[in-house]
């Protein structure tokens, strides 16, 4: 469903990580952990084909959903318009209102992104990521700006995604860790680390 083979990314002459290898099957939730700056988000971007790996390759999924905290929205478009746009350009996807109901944002379907709180935007990003029922869902700190209800929404989304595909979750949050079934510690993949319990020859 989603695989990586000897994946490595070098930025500014420094290896962020190397030799990252995995193969996920439906139902897997891969948690990517590690200290700040170890390349969690970069790995996620590489998996989403937004960043070219310096070595190795990605076995791409059939379809992909991606939601990250730093991903911007069109300030002047409403939630509904975002989802309509996404549905039309992808050529697939559920009705905007249904998806918004799933992330509990249907009450704000006609609010522009510039008028939304950071939590509402996070929900809209999730809605955009799951609208077309992707086979792989990549989430970068999905509940960073969410309240308790929002966290439950993320939990539901991950549970639902496991029914039909895989999830990759980049996080340092203890609660979010609980969702993962597999752990990839990038702190250990960072070349030059002294103790490397998760690394095998």
């Amino acid at each position, binding site marked *: 469903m989603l695989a990586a083979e*000897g994946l490595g990314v*070098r930025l*500014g*002459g*420094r*290896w962020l*990580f*190397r*030799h*990252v*290898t*995995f193969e996920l*099957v439906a*139902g*897997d939730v*891969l*948690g990517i*952990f590690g200290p700040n700056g170890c390349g969690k988000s970069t790995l996620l971007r590489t998996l989403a084909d937004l960043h*070219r790996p310096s070595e190795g390759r990605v076995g791409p999924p059939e379809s992909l959903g991606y939601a990250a905290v730093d991903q911007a929205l069109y300030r002047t478009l409403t939630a509904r318009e975002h989802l309509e746009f996404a549905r039309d350009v992808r050529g697939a996807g559920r009705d905007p209102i249904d998806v918004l109901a799933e992330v509990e944002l249907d009450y704000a379907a006609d609010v522009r992104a510039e008028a939304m709180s950071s939590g509402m935007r996070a929900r809209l990003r999730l809605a955009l990521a799951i609208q077309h029922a992707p086979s792989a869902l990549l989430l970068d700190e999905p509940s960073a700006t969410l309240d308790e209800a929002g966290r439950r929404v993320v939990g539901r989304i991950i549970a639902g995604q496991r029914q039909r595909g895989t999830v990759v979750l980049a996080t340092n949050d203890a609660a979010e860790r609980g969702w*993962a*079934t*597999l*752990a*990839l*510690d*990038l*702190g*250990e*993949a960072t*070349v*030059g680390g002294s103790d*490397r*319990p*998760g*690394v*095998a*020859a």
Partner: protein
Amino acid sequence: METVNRLVIGLLGALMAVGTAATFMVSDAPKFQAPELARIVFWHLPCALVGSFLWLAGQVCAVGYLHTKEARWDQRSISAMEVGTLFGVLAMVTGILFSKVQWGAWWNWDPRQSSYLMVLLIVSAYFALRASVDEPGRRASLSGVYAVASLVPVLFLTFIYPKLKVVQTLHPNVIQGGELTFDPQYRVVFYAMLLLILGLGISLVNLRFRTLRLESALDIQDAELANRDHSAAPRVVRPLSLSPTDQSAASAIGEAFGATDHPR
């Protein structure tokens, strides 16, 4: 390889000395305003031609890069562009000097002159683009696209624009044989100089290309050295299973290290 290169450079130097001497030994060109100073043409015109040639070669190499995505084509392209610019600037400078002597003004807005300046502008834009993208792969792709996209304007400016009837040129049509043709003696020296300067250009491009190859090889080696693992074999990073009951996720490595024994 090294000896061959030294030989070529030595030979070029010797021939260049002979050629320079020859440019002073031919008789004055009678049809110019300042016949004795017209000798600058021996340098000016070959520099201009070699500059244009190398720019076009650089653009063709950019096509090669976009086609193959191999770094060496990008390095060939940039080497040719850089050395071409060196000759282009030399052609501009000698042209400006000669323009003052021949036509009495430093700058004339002569079509040949202005089209050359405009090509130089396109090439400068190319270098500006290269300077503002940091990542080598992206830099090569973006500047490659720009080099190829500018091929049509460059060809237009180099070959079509100066010949258009709408624009009248002051430049003597030396090659096609207009009013001011070279006499035979002049022609021999001119073609010899053209060949020599072309040879010089190509060997400079070759040198620059080899320097770039070495630089990139060094960069890669530096990165390898800085990140060298303490162990010999490359290590593979695999995920560990967090839930021992999850069969699909349990990997041999995970079990070997204890699936739930995870620091942090």
